[in-house]
């Protein structure tokens, strides 16, 4: 599974970067950066990724199959 960011919705407040530090960092303006560049979710972070998706205030995070 992969983490997808809808950039048209994300406001860069960074809730996700706190919840999912293992996968995300912040850029110069506070927007999330996928550490691996692709958003591949390791098994162990499944739960944390789902929580970040649920907590994103802008519904900008999605889990995708590809």
């Amino acid at each position, binding site marked *: 599974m992969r983490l997808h960011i809808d950039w048209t919705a994300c406001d860069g407040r960074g809730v996700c970067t706190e919840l999912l530090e293992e996968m995300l960092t912040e850029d*110069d303006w506070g927007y999330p950066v996928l550490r691996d560049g692709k958003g591949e979710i390791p098994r162990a972070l499944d739960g944390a990724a789902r929580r970040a998706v649920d907590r994103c205030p802008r519904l900008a995070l999605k889990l*995708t199959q590809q």
Partner: protein
Amino acid sequence: MTSVAEAPTGRVEQRLLDGEVGLDAHLARHGRLPILDSSQIIGMARDAGLTGRGGAGFPVWRKLSAVAQAGGAAVVVANAAEGEPASRKDRALLAYQPNLVLDGLQLAAAATRAKAAHLYAPKAALPALRRLLVARRTAGLDRLEVTLHAAPDAFVSGEESAVVSAINGTGAVPADKRIRIIQAGVGGAPTLVQNVETLAHLALIARYGAGWFLTAGTADEPGTFLATVSGAVRRPGVIEAGYGVPLGDLIAAAGGATMPLQAVLIGGYHGGWVPADPALPVSRRALEPFGASPGAGVVVALPANACGLGETARIAGYLADQVAGQCGPCINGLPRMAATLADLAARRPRPGLPAEVERLARLVSGRGACRHPDGTARLVLSAMRAFEADVVAHLHGRCLATEGHR
């Protein structure tokens, strides 16, 4: 600048832009379209190896079959937005051979069994197209009625999800790609967006066959493409040539260079700088080592007395202004990247300036709803490589171009 070059030289070859203008001339020369079904059209596009001419070069038959199989009444869209300032080829095609585009649109509709067809073009092109559509309908040429839409004059207005949004009435801005337009585009229907030049090639392939198409271009990259040649050339304009045409032949067909050249921008404002080597073939394969591709056929010749960093900074500034204000990394990153490059170009050096340009280019890549940040970063990174000596000079407060060191 929309002149069609004559006097073919080398592999410069006229297919699309050949022949007289007008519907009667079109019918006299090419005749009516043969009646073909979906699988025949898709098969011909596959056998011809036809790829998209809007920039990405994606195989046409794959898109046709994906939309045909998506289920539901499909929609087809001809994209003539041509938001790229250095490109004139789609306007030239609409002015000289619009019937090939409209034939191609009907073929794409037949291939996908579409229930609606749209043509999206700059406002200035619409009145003539409206008249032509009436004439074609009277002549019984178009099975499916074509609706015209005005494309706003903005760089991103031709990006495919922006095209779909414009037709849906929600503004010509790109959308998030999680839902693909092939599945849900115009009115939520499976949608095919194809560049107008791509459609015109399809119209010729339907008449003369895949085998004929393969006789131009290279074995891997068949067919001709429309190039818009500008910059330091005598007769800037649109030139048709087979893929693999030597760069020098394109420049020669545009009247030749007005002075010695130092580099050439290929592919457009999202393209890359390559050496001004007359023997360099214009094909994906030959341009790949330079991080460039033929893209939508843009060729800009940079004279030896111009500064490549300055020219790139100017383009990057324009592209940063064209950001469709939606995605944070693009809205913030492109202006910062352009301003940093402008400091380098204007010889306002500070420690780590080139590294900062490269960091920003990598930071914005892949982080937007559309590939505008990626394309802008590609251009900037290619300039940092192509003009490496200029970068060093600028860091020392000097400029090779203006000092005549070339």
